[in-house]
């Protein structure tokens, strides 16, 4: 922090950078670091810049640490991950082998993310949809 304040000529930009970094810290760490910044800023007559930038600081709440929201967000994340992997894989398979037959489409949609990831390793080498998806 001291290094950034001392080095950069554009103070406003420097303060903005520091505040941006602080926004990512946990609440208690952030308070301590902000306090330090205010003291240092006072030394360099930057208090007002710090105050302006702090007001714009986005406070990130870590959703995953919340007891109720965490599991819900996590569930969405897992569903989304499977969906995203499926989207890309299906496109790749169709590009290689043409439109997917119904059984292949159903089989793919039922696979968990871990198995979709395994399939992605084999999609370039497989000779046919049957070979890729059998077992």
């Amino acid at each position, binding site marked *: 922090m001291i290094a950034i304040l001392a080095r950069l000529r554009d103070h406003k930009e420097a303060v903005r950078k520091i505040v941006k970094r602080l926004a990512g810290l946990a609440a208690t760490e952030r308070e301590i670091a902000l306090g330090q910044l205010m003291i240092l800023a006072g030394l360099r007559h930057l208090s007002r810049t710090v105050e302006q930038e702090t007001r714009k600081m986005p406070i990130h709440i870590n*959703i995953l640490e919340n007891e*109720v*929201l965490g*599991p*819900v*967000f*996590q*569930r*969405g*994340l*897992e*569903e*989304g*991950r*499977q*969906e*995203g*992997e*499926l*989207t*890309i*894989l299906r*496109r*790749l398979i169709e*590009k*290689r082998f043409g439109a997917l037959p119904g059984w292949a489409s159903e089989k793919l949609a039922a696979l968990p*993310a871990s198995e*979709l*990831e395994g399939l*992605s*390793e084999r*999609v*370039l080498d497989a000779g046919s949809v049957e070979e890729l998806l059998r077992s």
Partner: protein
Amino acid sequence: MPITASILEHDVLGPVLKKFLLDGRRDGVREGMLTILSRIITKRFGALPGWAIVKLAATPVSELEVMTERLLDAKSLEELLR
């Protein structure tokens, strides 16, 4: 019984939680796409250099899908990600 399923239908909490579910899903879709794409790109062209990771991370979901179509034909990483 999965408790989250019933909470999602709650009059007051439901809409809030559904928003979090959707936020999670949106992040997940992107993550899933990048997981598969980066695996296949690595298999084709070798380990991803820093610039490619930065570029991929900044590419919107819709473009990731389009990129998939070009993945098999691209001759190089530069051609794919330019």
